[in-house]
């Protein structure tokens, strides 16, 4: 189902992931999170931006285990654990945060 962001329409796949990663703008994450009744804080944005940088470098959305470890390395052990990440993204940090970031569903997620 396409989503509306600031008057623009964005195509998504059947699971709500953005069809074209290059379309992404921060408003996409705002609209998607509002639909999930989630308010995005700086902590959420740290993860979303981190995922976008990861994709830019490696051309894949990381599996949750890989994300957890990479966040731990970059932002410290207190953030690189699943409790912290699931606290921010209750539907699963890889799936939900990747969707907000405009990335495809992580490879290996079923």
């Amino acid at each position, binding site marked *: 189902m396409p989503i509306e962001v600031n008057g623009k329409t964005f195509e998504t796949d059947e699971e709500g992931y953005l069809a074209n990663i290059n379309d992404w703008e921060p408003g996409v994450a705002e609209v998607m999170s509002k639909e999930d009744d989630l308010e995005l804080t700086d902590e959420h944005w740290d993860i979303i931006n981190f995922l976008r940088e990861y994709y830019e*470098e*490696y*051309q*894949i959305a*990381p*599996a949750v*285990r*890989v994300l957890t*470890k*990479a966040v731990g*390395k970059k932002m410290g052990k207190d953030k690189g654990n699943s409790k912290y990440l699931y606290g921010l993204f209750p539907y699963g940090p890889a799936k939900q945060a990747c969707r907000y970031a405009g990335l495809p569903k992580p*490879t*290996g997620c079923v």
Partner: protein
Amino acid sequence: MSESIKQFLYLNRKAPYGTIYAWESLEVVLIGAAFDQDVSLAFVEDGVFQLTKNQDTSAVGMKNFSPTYAALGDYEVKKIYVEKESLEERGLSLDDLQHLTWEDEDDDWAEKDSIHLVTRSEMTAIMDGADVVFSF
């Protein structure tokens, strides 16, 4: 879950583009790495081209997925075997390949080389030692 950890070897023999084998193999590796397996990758014949630096796919209209090989370390894939003879037969050397590393969390994130150059006979032994070989 299974009682023992199996040794999986993913054998890559084809050039990166033109067929889907190389990308499929990489995707299966990334998916499989989420499970408790001992994963190794082997590159022989035209498969060695998959690891070359500076790939440019703009003319063939396929996504350049070569940056993804650098993520293998994050997925705990630390053993990448490249056959020396296959490189030489194609006028390539280790310097033509990406420098792939993994970071050892127990060693203050020290970067360690993932790629191991092996001879054809060593490669035979590696294949022989694996519990399961997936050929792509």
